[in-house]
């Protein structure tokens, strides 16, 4: 394996710096929210991880289609990297949301459309890894993985639309807390922390994808050597 390219080294340093700045902005710079208190500071990282989580799942579905069309293993590596990194980030999103919900709604969990859809999406991508684990041939693994990310990527938005029909009792809870109400009460400093978190997590996401791509390349090399050795 080649040593880390200079671009990745720089990106690693930048990632750590932007994460530190984003944490500083979220924890100290942004004013304490009056209604929620300190826990509202979790919101910046919640949004940041949610954004890259969803971005990764979209990228994965696109990479899946690209793989099926081109049969180029590079797309498969992209798909795995995007799904894996996003699954980790999305897990953080769900738990951070839950931690925020406990003092806000007095419960860790509600079966609200967003929460439920997030949980189901996470399960789809966990199933994705179980599917891949059960297949030995790399080429078949890539094909099946691509088909499944495609199915998952399309069913998730429909799930959201369907569940919204069930939970008409409290659609405002999340909508007002994260959307209109929060936006109205979000001061200038809060906006800075908010947008910087989005930017910071995008950088972190790219950095992690890059590392994961290199890991996949290494995996492929070892796998092909093993196949050669066993023949």
């Amino acid at each position: 394996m080649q040593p880390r390219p200079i671009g990745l080294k720089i990106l690693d340093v930048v990632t750590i710096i932007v994460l530190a700045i984003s944490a500083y902005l979220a924890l100290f710079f942004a004013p304490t929210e009056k209604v929620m208190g300190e826990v509202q500071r979790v919101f910046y990282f919640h949004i940041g991880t949610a954004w890259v989580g969803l971005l990764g799942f979209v990228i994965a579905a696109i990479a899946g289609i690209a793989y099926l069309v081109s049969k180029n293993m590079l797309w498969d590596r992209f798909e795995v990297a995007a799904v894996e990194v996003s699954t980790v980030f999305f897990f953080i999103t769900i738990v951070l949301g839950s931690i925020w919900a406990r003092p806000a709604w007095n419960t860790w969990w509600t079966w609200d459309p967003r929460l439920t859809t997030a949980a189901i999406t996470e399960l789809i991508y966990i199933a994705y890894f179980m599917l891949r684990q059960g297949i030995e041939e790399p080429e078949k693994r890539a094909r099946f993985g691509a088909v499944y990310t495609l199915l998952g990527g399309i069913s998730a938005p429909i799930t959201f639309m369907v569940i919204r029909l069930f939970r008409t009792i409290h659609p405002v809870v999340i909508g007002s807390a994260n959307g209109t109400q929060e936006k109205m009460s979000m001061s200038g400093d809060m906006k800075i922390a908010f947008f910087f978190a989005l930017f910071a997590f995008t950088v972190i996401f790219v950095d992690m994808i890059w590392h994961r791509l290199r890991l996949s390349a290494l995996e492929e090399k070892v796998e092909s050597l093993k196949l050669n050795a066993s023949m």
Partner: protein
Amino acid sequence: MFLLLEEAPDTFGYMILGYAFFSVVMIAYVASMYVRNRNLKRDLETLESIQAEEAKPTKRQ
């Protein structure tokens, strides 16, 4: 409910919990990538040395 309160509720503990959780998961994930990378490199070295040995005309018994 909270709108009625004059002062912000004390939710400092939850904030710490949130960021602690974030740090733990991120560190765990980066560590898992590092460990996987190290193991793969070790596998690669082993496989390459096996191949190099097989390439030699006289095999070690």
